């Protein structure tokens, strides 16, 4: 039995019909074609599927779509404005904070949530907040530099 839901995706009111077992990640990727968030570990460990739900990072692989009825989701596609990249995206490019890119949307959204909450984080705060996002290419130093840089400029 499908259930109708309404939610805000990247600032726009959207509607969907979903089975209770559909995950937020499946709905975002398959029904809305927003494929920036990736399926990785499927057990909330790796961070590749990170989306911001009401401004907070969650593992979209383990959130039920029916449970986001009436709430607000931000994906990597909604981060920049007017064809301009978000400062965190710019910094990731400038410092080469990615190789394959699979983890990148998760890292950038988590970094955005961190900077919204703590605009001038210490290195320890950055490490704590991002400890649950894995980059198997090993760009951690560049990711740290990129986030530090955005914090310094803002």
């Amino acid at each position, binding site marked *: 039995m499908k259930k109708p839901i309404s939610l805000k995706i990247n600032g726009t009111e959207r509607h969907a019909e979903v089975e209770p077992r559909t995950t937020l990640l499946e709905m975002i990727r398959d029904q809305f074609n927003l494929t920036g968030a990736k399926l990785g570990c499927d057990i*909330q*460990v790796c961070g590749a599927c990170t989306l911001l739900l009401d401004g*907070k990072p*969650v*593992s979209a692989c383990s959130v039920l779509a029916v*449970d986001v009825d009436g709430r607000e989701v931000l994906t990597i596609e909604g981060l920049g404005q007017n064809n301009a990249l978000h400062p965190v995206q710019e910094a990731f490019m400038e410092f080469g904070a990615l190789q394959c890119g699979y983890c990148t949307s998760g890292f950038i959204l988590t970094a955005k949530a961190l900077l919204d909450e703590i605009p001038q984080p210490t290195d320890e705060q950055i490490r704590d907040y991002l400890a649950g996002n894995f980059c198997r290419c090993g760009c951690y130093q560049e990711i740290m530099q990129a986030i530090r840089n955005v914090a310094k400029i803002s």
Partner: protein
Amino acid sequence: MRNFDYLEPVTVAEACALLKQYAGEAKVFAGGSHLTILMKQGLYQPKALVNIKKISELKGIKYDAKEGLCIGALVTHREIETSALVREKFPVLSDAEREVANIRVRNMGTVGGNLASGEPLTDLSQIFIALDGKAKISGPNRERIIPVEELFIDFYTTSLAEDEILTQVVVPPLPARSSIEYIRFSSSSVVDKPSAGVAVRLTLDSSGNAIQTARIVLGCVGATPVRARQAEASLAGKGLTPQLAEETGSAASQECNPTSDLRGSEHYKRAIVRTLVKRAAMTAYKRATSA
């Protein structure tokens, strides 16, 4: 994942009635961080999920001078971590939460779900037990309050009946001349589940030197959190010396039942428990005597 009926009651009574109706075939769904994983893996295949997120009385943290810290079942790990009230009254909880899983799980996962899942590899239960925490439970037409300790029966098995909901955890004010220390040990990545987590709470007698009561609770090293009762008893009436702390750690390490797994062998975990109990007891004692 198998499909299921999805229900969203707005009161506890309604939720309990739904659980009763499904007679054990429904699961209570709070944050969902634990349940969705087990459902995707096919380990749970409930006929219905009873999502309790719309029940507003299950939300929020408050402090009552008599009753203590009241934590609603829907309070998330992250709310505990960042709450100024919790930081003021029970900083041990704020500090422990910083190390729980990762930011996404802490945003989603709830205190109620954490306890009601019966997951043994976790942190909060042993701290609550060391603090003499109580669990408030509601069922159709009844309410009961039990020590948190009595919630846990076996791996993933609690004393909650199939039509009951854990509604609140109450942590009574720390008695005078008391201190608690919690230390968790994680084998690899900082965000891994703990290999062992040890909570020690000491309350001194009126002399301010001798231990009146001790709680030593060992987590992740058995099917449920374990009270090291012999080790606790061995401390009564004594001041804590490094040698006594060492002996207490050794005694406690024999009172648990760790499983050999990727987080360490049984032998290794017992050695960790020994060291953590010693360290936590020393720290708690030092803090209690200097307060």
